[in-house]
């Protein structure tokens, strides 16, 4: 109720004030029109009396002020034209001082003063000095601020600056500076005094009113920056020290914050760079409630932009030791403000780091220093839990990654891992993912085992369970994404030198082996393939270096591979392990290492026997075994026989008859290898094919019994195709007669009443016959071969 009454009242008073001004303005204009000086002075004094009110808030007072201001402009024009009023400006200056009340008197005096200076009948500096001192007569904050603001406004164009018309003997820009500094100091004092005026419960209203007036005070700094005579030297020796003195001594937090920021924004960056020590020296002297970190951040931001836009000034930054000064200042501020929360300190360091990365990107020692300061600040505290702080720390750690586009550089910062150690487990993982993504995005190659070691330490949150966490808590999708990222990362770890590459592989293994059963299926395969790639590189290289103990040999790598794949047994992941063993077997074959290849095959078979239970998985697994074995050329007869015997045996023991049939005829290829040294055992080929035929027959009968009809003849057609294959290869045991017989068999089956017609197998048979016809029509050796077969 009180407040709304207050606002209504204010509106009323403002309206009254405006009416008063308008009323007197009417008579003022009449006086001006008739060149009546006396009347003009009378009515302008009355008009200005409205500004004596103390009932208006600054916002409303301003409206009143503006109206008075407009009238004073007219008055000034009148004063300027001596012909109109016949009074010399000197006399005028004296005359207006007879006005009754001090406020109107001073407004009139300032107005005349402006004319006086323009007339050049007195040195500008004398008039200005007089005015700035006289204004002391008004000590009421709002009224005084507006009065002095008026003074500043009208004197603006008459300051004795270099090359201005008001420069003269004894009238220099230093006088202008002095004037503005004094006006500024007085205005600040008035402004600060407002703070102690109102009762404490109206604090919010007071702050608002003070903020409404702040630009009046700040304008003076702007004017100072515009005075041409103020160069770096003057700024450094006179302007800045005086302004800072005022800022520090006023001991008012609102003023201090605003004015520090104003200084930074208004004066050129070049000046700040050269006066860094002075400027920063003021910071610890400010009230503890001042948000100094924002001020410092803005300063650093300006300087960063300055460096970015004008690279030629970079040497200057080094010369003034900008980094050291800023770093020390921040340290002092943090020390002085004991109650500053951690998030504040870290935010400051983030700003400093951003500055460093912009201005001195090549100075990794500076970057490391900033990180080190953070470590110091964070140590002794428990792991961070405040999300604002962790957000800032993540920003701190991401900045070097973004800047350098190269994780390798970040890896050389000794304090980087130490900062990461202070993150809680969840944020640690977030940061680890950020690091991996940076590597992937920039296609960075991490090329030494030392760097890999540092990297895997950094991302250890992803690699294993660190204290207090367990993989059970994780969302499955997130976990998969994490682990797949780690897997992708492994392909970025590479060195051309085999020794170093092996070291890298060993380092990675050391880290991932502790990952546990949930992680190993993701991390083991990429490591295995990295190792296999290395084996191939060594295999392709020229011979051994005689006499030297070479750590990186295929044999040693296969030993390591055995260990690595074996780790999958804890998961357990038999199907994956089986595939990896077969890959190793092939690689060992290519290196001519028969016992190693045999050992890998043994492992694969053991897994097949003991662990692969699912029938579908068995089918795939046995085909992989057969396919791999078919390509092996390193085995001697005994070993080969043992393995092929096993393969064929397991093929025949698959659960479903069609699967058995197909696996067995696939085995036929084990006995026929097309290259010049390869086995070409036509007898055993035929044995396999006959066996698969028997199985196909049995399958047909089974279908007959269980469903009352014959199954599709597909299997027979498949076997027929295999007969043709070996027939064409020239296996003497596969005769045209046998093929003929098989064709008749199929035809009979297809025509039999009990057979369900199956378009697919019909088409298959048809295309097979078409193929035979095609081969017959070829003529030449092939045509001859096929001649006995009649369709």
């Amino acid at each position, binding site marked *: 109720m009180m407040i709304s009454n207050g606002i209504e009242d204010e509106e009323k008073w403002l309206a009254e004030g405006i009416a008063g001004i308008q009323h007197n303005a009417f008579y003022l204009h009449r006086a001006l029109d008739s060149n009546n000086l006396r009347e003009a002075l009378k009515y302008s004094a009355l008009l200005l009396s409205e500004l004596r009110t103390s009932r208006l808030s600054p916002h409303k007072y301003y409206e009143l002020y503006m109206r008075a201001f407009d009238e004073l402009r007219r008055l000034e024009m009148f004063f300027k034209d001596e012909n109109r009023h016949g009074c010399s400006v000197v006399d005028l200056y004296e005359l207006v001082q007879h006005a009754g009340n001090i406020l109107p008197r001073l407004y009139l005096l300032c107005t005349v003063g402006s004319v006086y200076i323009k007339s050049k009948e007195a040195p500008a500096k004398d008039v200005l000095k007089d005015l700035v001192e006289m204004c002391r007569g008004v000590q009421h904050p709002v009224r005084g601020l507006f009065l002095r603001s008026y003074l500043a406004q009208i004197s603006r164009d008459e300051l004795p600056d270099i090359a201005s018309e008001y420069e003269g003997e004894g009238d220099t820009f230093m006088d202008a500076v002095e004037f503005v500094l004094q006006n500024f100091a007085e205005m600040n004092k008035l402004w600060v005094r407002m703070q102690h005026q109102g009762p404490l419960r109206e604090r919010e209203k007071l702050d608002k009113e003070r903020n409404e007036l702040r630009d009046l005070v700040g304008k003076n700094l702007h004017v100072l920056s515009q005075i041409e005579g103020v160069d770096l030297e003057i700024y450094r020796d006179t302007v800045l020290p005086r302004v800072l003195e005022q800022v520090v001594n006023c001991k008012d937090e609102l003023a201090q914050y605003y004015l520090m920021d104003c200084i930074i924004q208004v004066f050129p960056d070049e000046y700040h760079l050269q006066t860094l020590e002075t400027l920063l020296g003021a910071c610890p002297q400010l009230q503890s409630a001042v948000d100094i970190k924002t001020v410092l951040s803005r300063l650093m931001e300006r300087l960063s932009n300055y460096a970015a836009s004008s690279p030629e000034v970079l040497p200057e930054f080094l010369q003034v030791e900008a980094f050291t000064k800023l770093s020390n200042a921040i340290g002092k501020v943090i020390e002085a403000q004991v109650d500053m929360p951690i998030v504040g300190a870290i935010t400051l360091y983030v700003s400093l780091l951003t500055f460093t990365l912009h201005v001195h990107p090549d100075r990794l020692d500076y970057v490391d220093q900033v990180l080190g300061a953070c470590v110091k600040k964070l140590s002794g505290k428990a792991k961070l839990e405040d999300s604002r702080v962790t957000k800032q720390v993540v920003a701190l750690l991401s900045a070097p990654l973004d800047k350098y586009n190269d994780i390798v550089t970040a890896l050389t910062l000794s304090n980087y891992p130490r900062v990461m150690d202070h993150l809680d487990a969840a944020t640690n993982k977030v940061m680890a993912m950020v690091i991996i993504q940076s590597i*992937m995005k920039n*296609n960075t190659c991490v090329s030494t085992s030392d760097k890999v070691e540092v990297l895997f330490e950094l991302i250890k949150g992803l690699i294993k369970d660190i204290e207090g966490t367990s993989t059970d808590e994780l969302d499955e999708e997130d976990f*998969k994404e994490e682990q*797949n990222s780690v*897997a*992708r*990362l492994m*392909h*970025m770890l590479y060195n051309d030198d085999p020794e170093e590459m092996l070291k890298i592989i060993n380092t990675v293994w050391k880290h991932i082996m502790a990952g546990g059963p949930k992680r190993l299926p*993701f991390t083991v*395969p*990429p490591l295995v*393939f990295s190792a*296999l*790639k290395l084996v*191939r590189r060594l295999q*392709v290289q020229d011979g051994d270096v005689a006499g030297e103990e070479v750590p990186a040999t295929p044999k040693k790598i296969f030993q390591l591979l055995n260990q690595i794949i074996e780790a999958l047994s804890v998961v357990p992941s038999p199907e994956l392990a089986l*595939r990896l063993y077969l*890959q190793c077997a*092939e*690689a060992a074959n*290519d290196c001519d290492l028969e016992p190693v290849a045999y050992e890998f095959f043994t492992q694969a078979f053991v897994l097949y026997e003991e662990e692969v239970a699912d029938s579908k998985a068995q089918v*795939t697994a046995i*085909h*992989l075994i*057969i*396919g*791999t074995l*078919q*390509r092996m050329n390193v085995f001697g007869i005994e070993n080969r026989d043992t393995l092929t015997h096993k393969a064929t045996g397991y093929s025949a023991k698959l659960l479903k008859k069609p699967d058995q049939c197909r696996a067995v005829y*696939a085995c036929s*290829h084990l006995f026929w290898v*097309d290259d010049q040294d390869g086995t070409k055992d036509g007898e055993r080929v035929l044995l396999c094919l006959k066996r698969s035929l028997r199985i196909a027959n049995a399958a047909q009968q089974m279908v007959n019994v269980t469903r009352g009809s014959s199954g599709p003849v*597909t299997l027979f*057609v*498949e076997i027929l*195709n*295999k007969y043709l*294959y070996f027939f*064409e290869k020239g296996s003497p045991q596969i005769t045209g007669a046998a093929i003929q017989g098989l064709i008749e068999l199929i035809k009979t089956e297809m025509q039999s009443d009990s057979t369900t017609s199956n378009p*697919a197998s019909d*088409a*298959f048979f*048809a*295309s*097979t016959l*078409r*193929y035979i016809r*095609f*081969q017959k029509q070829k003529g030449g050796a092939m045509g001859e071969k096929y001649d006995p077969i009649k369709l």
Partner: protein
Amino acid sequence: MVLVLALGDLHIPHRASDLPPKFKSMLVPGKIQHIICTGNLSIKEVHDYLKTVCPDLHIARGEYDEEIRYPETKTLTIGQFKLGVCHGHQVIPWGDLDSLAMLQRQLDVDILVTGHTHQFTAYKHEAGVVINPGSATGSYSSITYDVNPSFVLMDIDGLRVVVYVYELIDGEVKVDKIDFKKTTGSNT
């Protein structure tokens, strides 16, 4: 003109971290009508990525695929052509063209797309054409040494298919093309 992308054996993330950037920038969504994939992606993220390139995606199961429900073989008709896809680890000896021809006769398709060897081939035989798009990431293979990343784009137009093979050699994308014509009438 129907564009069909054929690729496979990416082996992400076991053997490769991603498709080569030069390939990725070529695979713009909306330009291709069908994708035929020989398998071994091997994770869902790759599946999802391929879907964004073209929603009509046909995949055959490779032995490392995370998704076990992809079929062993698949056939589809595009225009005048019947196409079939099979990863190829099931056809022994691996990469043997005569054995693949048998599969082609069995599936009764004009074009058989198959993988596993990581070696690009395009081969015409009695029953039709066998195309192996190689490995799109150039990943390690126990069968082929020095694998270059490759994929195939087929332009099917009436009875004619032009097979473009894109291969990344020493950092540059090289393109080659082969023409195949089908005789009128289906294979009886």
